[in-house]
């Protein structure tokens, strides 16, 4: 038995023994996701046990180094773990912006001190992070941000306003882009800083979306004191960190839809609502649309696979991430439109128990934000045309 086969066998046995039955059901909705953090109220004992057991193994962050609380797994081992978890439908034990975003940034740019301070609590699900990038009136134009951090010797004083801070009202710490050199222009003079959301002068206001949910906040900073050692990477070079993370984020769009449609095929769903005729979906137009979407999705996944394989071979992803972000989010929007086509009036119910309080319509509406957040589709096309295709500026 190879090492990897042995690892698989051990992993399978461990998961069988340790993953509670309740945690082996697909999420019914995003609301059942475990975010962790100081304010987190576990929805069940099983959710708590599962998070803690996985954290003890370091498997909440399988590939992070063991000394920072991770699992220290190789790429191959991590894939085996993912496969084995998927095999039994095991839920993600805990996840938040600390795992997706801050962790990778610290591992690449953070000092040893910052890694030791922040990574272990993330792995244990103790600290929930949020992201402070966008500002009102800046939108996709991140480089024009105006939140400023004034140098007061041993600390900064931060003043300004952020918008689209995900779950800032429920997060414990924030990673935040602030202007540390007001003289510098555009991308220069920006730093990437970390601070506690319970600091004096921090306040948040949830933003209600058209879907009725409030996953984002407006966040206000009024003379917030930030320790100077909480700067990730070099002072005034926060743009490098932010750009790395944006690329990282876009690169992680793998084509698996979030929400209700995760793991669900549209064909059988549509058959349930529109019926069949001569062995085919009764709505021929919808059938053709679903086939086209699935073909495009298959093509997208093939491209994702190719780009990732090249990235592993050291060719890097770079501006390709903009291609993935663009198509991944546009496909997802199409997918939710077709789901709504299939569900008819049932999909439109907004508050019935039958539909879990309008889950379908809300997720359809929420998907419209995919091509706005994290860089709009228009910005992505601009990056592709300039940086991948080399088309000239006007």
């Amino acid at each position, binding site marked *: 038995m190879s090492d990897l086969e042995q690892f698989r066998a051990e992993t399978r046995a461990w998961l069988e023994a340790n993953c509670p039955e309740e945690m082996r059901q697909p999420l019914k909705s995003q609301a059942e996701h475990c975010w962790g953090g100081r304010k987190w109220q576990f929805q069940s004992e099983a959710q708590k046990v599962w998070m803690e057991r996985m954290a003890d193994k370091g498997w909440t962050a399988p590939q992070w180094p063991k000394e920072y609380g991770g699992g220290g797994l190789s790429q191959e081992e991590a894939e085996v773990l993912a496969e084995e978890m998927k095999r039994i439908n095991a839920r993600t034990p805990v996840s938040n912006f600390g795992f997706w975003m801050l962790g990778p940034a610290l591992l690449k740019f953070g000092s040893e001190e910052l890694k030791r301070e922040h990574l272990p609590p993330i792995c244990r699900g103790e600290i929930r992070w949020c992201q402070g990038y*966008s500002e009102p*009136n800046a*939108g*996709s*134009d991140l480089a*024009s941000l105006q939140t400023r951090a004034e140098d007061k010797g041993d600390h900064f004083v931060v003043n300004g306003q952020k*918008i*689209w801070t995900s779950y800032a009202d429920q997060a414990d710490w924030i990673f935040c882009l602030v202007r540390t050199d007001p003289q510098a222009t555009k991308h220069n003079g920006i730093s990437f800083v970390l601070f506690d959301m319970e600091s004096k002068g921090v306040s948040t206001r949830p*933003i*209600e*979306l*058209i879907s*009725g949910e409030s996953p984002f906040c407006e966040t206000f900073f009024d003379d917030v004191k930030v320790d100077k050692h909480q700067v990730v990477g070099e002072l005034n070079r926060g743009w490098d960190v932010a750009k790395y993370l944006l690329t990282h984020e876009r690169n992680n769009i793998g084509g698996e839809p979030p929400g209700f449609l995760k793991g669900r095929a549209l064909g059988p769903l549509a058959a349930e*609502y*529109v*019926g069949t005729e001569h062995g085919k979906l009764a*709505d*021929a*137009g*919808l059938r053709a649309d679903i086939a086209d979407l699935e073909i495009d999705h298959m093509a997208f996944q093939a491209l994702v696979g190719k780009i990732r394989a090249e990235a592993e071979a050291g060719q890097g992803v770079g501006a390709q991430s903009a291609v993935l972000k663009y198509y991944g989010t546009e496909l997802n*929007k199409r997918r939710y*439109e077709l789901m*709504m*086509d299939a*569900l*008819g*009036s*049932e*999909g*439109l*119910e*907004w*508050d*019935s128990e039958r539909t879990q309080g*309008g889950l379908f*319509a809300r997720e*359809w*509406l929420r998907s*419209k*934000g995919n*091509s*706005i*957040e994290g860089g*709009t*589709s*228009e910005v992505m*096309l601009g990056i592709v045309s300039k940086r991948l295709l080399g088309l000239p500026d006007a």
Partner: protein
Amino acid sequence: MKLNDEQQMLQDSVARLMADKGPVSHLRQLRDEHHDKGYDEPLWQAMVEAGLTGILVPEEHGGIGFGLVGAGLVAREIGRNLSVTPFLSTAVLGAAALSAGGSDEQKAKWLPAIAEGTAIIALAVDDGAKHRPERLQARVEGGTLSGEKRLVLDGHVADLLLVAAGEGDQAALYLVDPKADGVTVERTVMADSRNAARIRFDGVPAEAMADGAAALAAALRAGRAVLAAELSGLALEAFERTLGYLKERKQFGRLIGTFQALQHRAAQLSGEVAMSEALAMQALDACDRGADDADQQVLAAKAKAARVALLAGQEAVQMHGGIGMTDEFDIGFFLKRARAGGETLGDANYCADRFAALRGY
């Protein structure tokens, strides 16, 4: 087609009325207060006073008999303002059905009530999640109706239900008293914050019409044509609000309306909206004129309007960016209504399929 002077006057006065008394803010308010009737009562009263509830009711029954072009002009302004009234359910579907297939007594009883605004009428067609009037499951046997209906617009406040059901091989509309034993009404609030209901019928007395099949056909045709006009108005408004935003919002130091990629998309959308509007009015006119291809035109108009309204809603949210995703901003209401209105009485795929069938392929 081009509006005549009378129609032009109607359009102008309805535009003022809806903008004054039925703006988007009313929809928001009705939603936020979980209004028990779910529609804008003062606006409805104003429409009664302006004679608009009787727009399809013949003069001998107290209406103004303005025809479907007139009803479409009202619907267009409803679309622009997202005004919430039982206009579609009562003044269009109810009036069209009763006029086309009601007995003399039925007409005499209900048509004046529609015109005077003293009755709300709801049409119940869909047995399932999708509109498929060719394959009805609800049945009438021995004068009693059994079945279940969905997406019954204003069903929970209706004084009369017009229910599509099969009897033998024949599908037809029947009059049902919503207060009769065996009727169970569940109000459902839809994504566009409007009313619909799911209604169960367990052996409920059903009153036949003089020609229930003709009534059903007339209601579907009128409803689709008028919805096409509403959706076109909605698309126009969503587009115009977006165009305004393109002219005032700055990004990267420039007005976003100077970005050529957005300019071309805006230009394409404006053309789509104009075509949707023109086809809706032409289809309404074809119905009024009794043109041979009126059914084809109505199906085409509904399919086109549903697609264009959805596109306009999608583009509107995308071009507004983050703010377009917030509930605080009104633009999202247009997207929601576009989908709900598009689904009502047959979505674009359904209408295109029926259109192709009528065209013989």
